[in-house]
């Protein structure tokens, strides 16, 4: 971890009430394994361990904690700091309707999240409309219609026109006409490496100008989280992330991976199949979860 020069300095400081290098090294070896078990990406883990190593080595020894406990505390604080520290609200437009666009891989939970967001923002005084932009998946439109019906939230679905861009622009017109101030676009799941499908999202973004693009990612995603988020970030760009299915026992290391690689905040987490199972993201809770 340290250069030869620093090592020399270190050996001299050794027993002076500072965390010794070997204390830190041994602890970090275990922490590395914990993070990998928690699905934090390999390169993100390596970078993170180096960062923590720098903070921990030479840190003043606290009387109430063992060296290992102290390193863990530094790790926990660093994790919390890295994943937090951003405004996690949604940017509402001064000129309604505000448009939120949901994107992500197949099966991540977008359609369910769309309904959850509609319910959440309605409880905050907004008048939402759901837009079924997925014309590919069998019964996707029906799925959103059923969810909207149960919530008594209007759902704009494609008529004869199945062009995703037209569906969205028609929805904006319809929302304005009805005085609705929030549009939630539920797009089809797609692979980040599907050029054509990623291009479709770029075209929707350019024509419809959403105020907020949210990546909906499965909370049990492993190492691939960096590729998925990285590609969506580069090709399309997004403002925040919603991590789903965290009601299970997945550790959720993808949260740190995505945040590290894109710099974008996690805004909400999905914690169940029902429409009320949506929570605002708490970085300290995620940090404890990742550390197991």
């Amino acid at each position, binding site marked *: 971890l340290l250069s030869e020069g620093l090592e020399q300095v270190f050996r001299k400081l050794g027993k002076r009430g500072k965390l010794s290098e070997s204390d830190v090294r041994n602890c970090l070896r275990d922490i590395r*394994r914990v993070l*990998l*078990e*928690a*699905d934090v*990406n*390999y*390169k993100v883990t390596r970078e993170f361990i180096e960062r923590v190593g720098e903070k921990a080595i030479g840190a003043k020894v606290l009387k109430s904690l063992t060296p290992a406990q102290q390193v863990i505390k530094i790790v926990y604080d660093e994790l919390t700091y890295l994943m937090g520290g951003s405004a996690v609200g949604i940017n509402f437009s001064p000129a309604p309707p505000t448009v939120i666009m949901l994107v992500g*891989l*197949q*099966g*991540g*939970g977008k359609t369910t999240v769309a309904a959850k967001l509609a319910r959440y923002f309605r409880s905050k005084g907004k008048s939402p409309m759901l837009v079924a932009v997925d014309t*590919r*998946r*069998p*019964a*996707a439109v*029906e*799925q*959103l*219609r*059923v*969810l909207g019906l*149960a919530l008594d939230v209007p759902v704009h679905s494609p008529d004869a026109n199945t062009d995703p861009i037209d569906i969205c622009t028609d929805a904006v017109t319809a929302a304005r006409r009805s005085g609705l101030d929030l549009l939630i676009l539920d797009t089809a799941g797609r*692979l*980040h*490496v599907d050029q054509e499908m990623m291009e479709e999202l770029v075209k929707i973004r350019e024509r419809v100008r959403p105020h907020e693009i949210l990546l909906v990612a*499965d909370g*049990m*995603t*492993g*190492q*691939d*989280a960096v*590729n*998925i988020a990285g590609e969506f970030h580069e090709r399309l760009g997004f403002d925040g992330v919603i991590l789903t*299915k965290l*009601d*299970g*026992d*997945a*550790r959720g*290391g*993808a949260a740190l991976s995505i945040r590290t690689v894109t710099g974008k905040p996690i805004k909400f987490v999905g914690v169940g*199949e029902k429409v009320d199972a949506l929570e605002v993201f708490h970085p300290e809770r995620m940090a404890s979860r990742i550390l197991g």
Partner: protein
Amino acid sequence: IKGHRTLDEEVLDEIEATLLQADVGPETTSKIISRIRERGRREKMEGLKAVKKVVKEEILAIMDSAPTADMSHSMSIPRPYVIMVVGVNGTGKTTTAGKLARKFGKEGKKVLLAAADTFRAAATEQLEIWAKRTGADIVRHKSGSDPAAVAFDALSAALSRRTDILIIDTAGRLHTRTNLMEQLKKIKRVLGGLLEGAPHEALLVLDATTGQNAIPQVDYFNQAVGISGIVLSKLDGTAKGGVVIAIRDRLSIPLRMIGIGEGPDDLRDFDPSEFVEALFG
């Protein structure tokens, strides 16, 4: 000697990075690396290429360690052959059920689909479209009804209609939801009560993008209903699905098939050597 050892450590680091980034997980990765070190003491292994070859052999040994029963059947199989499709939310169960209906339909088999997901919005409608697409029949109840009742009705229908293959699509459920796992056990009991030996297959559909959580998923589902095989879906993405090596090593459940797309023909038999090559690709 000292120079040689340093090179091997660099090579091992690179192998370790590849395996970890493929979701093989730290425990199974260190197990594989230890085996490589062991073999390195007994046999000559110089350079990355040689070590990679040995790693591939070791992984293949794990992947091939249990017999892969062939799903394209002989005449002696029970009729109907009952396949239950299970797994956590969003992994591709309904789509896989549809792909299986296509596969068996093409083999000239009479297929019946059972819409036993009575909970999720438009789950039945989704499966109905797959039935139309693949020429399979479908049994469904209204939303909110008992999934075990759907399974029972479907099996009764399959028996009376002399169906060859009955595929039961179940609702996604997190393995940590005890009540939902109990529901799955009930479906299994009901099937076995009507036809001894049913379900003949319980396929767990696992999303290739899933990390280490795949291990408890397989473990819990296996304890609940006994998993006869895994289908690894969404391998057309960039995820390597390396966690199946850890699963095979610990639970020896065979990996049967892979999903490589959203269309009806995007289902392949699992090929261990192709899989191992792709890990290092």
